[in-house]
């Protein structure tokens, strides 16, 4: 097997004595679409926080292409091609949707672009194309705080995509998105990921989404990995069905 893009080794994390991760090791390989499922409060978001440098584990290491990134800041890790979409959308809420996108696009440009106007025809087109992809083309000139929750979520994902990452970490991409829009969103997301060759890791609650789109599933429970494998394998595991999926 090839060397993993991202690898977490022996992670230990605790909050006020409660173990969020107890000697956890995870690897994600090129081209994968790895889903992490598990009950609420089992430490899934914490894993994303660690992998992006927002918090530091008590012990253990995170490797990106074999390089240790455990002690790097979110900014430094973002600069190495890891983007993140949040469970609660993190937007520049007083700015227009298109400005959110253009600032993200500008973030990957060189230093010189910092003194040119943010809005250029080329950048605007690129932003529009991404908004089109997630179905927000009509909202480009709205102030982002006025968007409905589901659309804010889509914008958050589009912003992450605008960073042209190699690895995308998604925290419950379909939560807050209406049931009708869920699958169209996932289809658009998957085609964008394939088209751009982006590897992704996503935390998800919707088992239908996981079963349909994940290439591999990892079940997280009480700070440990309970099971992992192909979706059909994992979902046929009796223990997983009982504890996590919620069917006997």
């Amino acid at each position, binding site marked *: 097997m090839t060397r993993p893009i991202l690898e977490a080794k022996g992670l230990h994390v605790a909050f006020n004595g409660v173990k969020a991760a107890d000697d956890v090791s995870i690897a994600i390989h090129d081209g994968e679409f790895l889903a992490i499922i598990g009950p609420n409060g089992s430490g899934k*978001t914490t894993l994303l*926080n660690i992998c992006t440098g*927002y918090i530091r584990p008590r012990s253990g290491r995170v490797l990106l292409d074999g390089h240790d990134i455990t002690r790097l800041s979110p900014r430094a890790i973002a600069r190495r091609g890891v983007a993140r979409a*949040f*469970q*609660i959308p*993190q937007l520049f809420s007083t700015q227009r949707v298109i400005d959110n996108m253009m600032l993200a696009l500008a973030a990957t440009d060189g230093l010189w672009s910092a003194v040119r106007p943010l809005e250029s025809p080329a950048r605007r087109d690129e932003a529009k194309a991404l908004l089109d992809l997630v179905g927000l083309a009509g909202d480009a000139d709205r102030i982002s705080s006025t968007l409905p929750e589901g659309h804010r979520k889509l914008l958050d994902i589009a912003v992450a995509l605008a960073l042209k990452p190699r690895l995308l970490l998604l925290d419950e991409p379909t939560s807050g998105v209406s049931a009708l829009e869920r699958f169209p969103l996932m289809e658009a997301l998957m085609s964008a990921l394939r088209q751009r060759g982006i590897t992704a890791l996503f935390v998800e609650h919707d088992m239908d989404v996981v079963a349909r789109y994940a290439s591999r599933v990892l079940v997280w429970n009480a700070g440990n990995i309970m099971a992992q494998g192909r979706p059909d394998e994992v979902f046929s595991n009796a223990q997983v069905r009982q504890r996590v999926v919620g069917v006997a």
Partner: protein
Amino acid sequence: MLNAIIPLLLDSLASAALIFFAAVGLTLVFSVLRVLNVAHGSLYSIGGYVAASICLFIASRQLNPYLSFAALLFSAVFVAAIFGPLIERSLVRWTYGKSEPVQILVTFGLFLILEDLQRMIFGVQSFYEDAPMRLLGTLTIGGVVYLNYQILLIGMALLVVIGLRLLINHTRLGRLITAVVTDREMAQSIGIDTNRIFILAFSLGVFLAALGGALATPTSGIAPGLGADTMVLAFAVAAIGGLGQIEGAAVASLIVGVARVLAIYLVPSLDAVAPYAAMLVVLLIRPYGLFGSMTARRI
């Protein structure tokens, strides 16, 4: 040796006591209302003006001079009763939940208004009425002369620290205030009349400021600009102690008082720099003050 240190110490403590009065109200109001009141220094000087006016009146009518002690206390109550509810209801309430720049600017506007009102009412000449200080006389121990008034100031400051702690820990009102400080929404939802708490807490803050101003006039007099000077000093002390920390303000007052007196004795030209330098050093090492804390933001 002791003869040199004790007067120095007494000076420091008395200076700290006055600074403490200026700062404790500011920090109290901040902890309950979450508003930094930039007009706080003006309430201090208004207390001073009212007290000085009444004391001068007492002197001019040749009434019993001991009445001036009652006058000091009365003027603080008077200022608090008038300005406390008025300011809280009309201006400060409007800023709850608004951003810091808005709160700072609204109270800065109030500061400008109060400064001019003082000038219109009390004029621009300075007031000096030291009857209360003269009445108490001096105390001579080991050949060194002490002002009894300084000892009174220190005692009053101690009384306020202890009184506030008792109020907060051992009375119903104190528990209500604590509830509001801890979780405003929760306090509201269990039926605490937060509006009343805000008025009371703000008025208490005004009272402490005005009391400080009243107690300060016999020692240093009062002149235009006192409000602005007091404001930054109170800021500095509240920040050093940690905004919202009453005991923190007490400790910070001591630090600033000592720093100031030391500066006066050692490098007189830098006495005005000492409080701010102390604030700068403390905030650079502990941005939330000696006793303050921060709560981290969660994603």
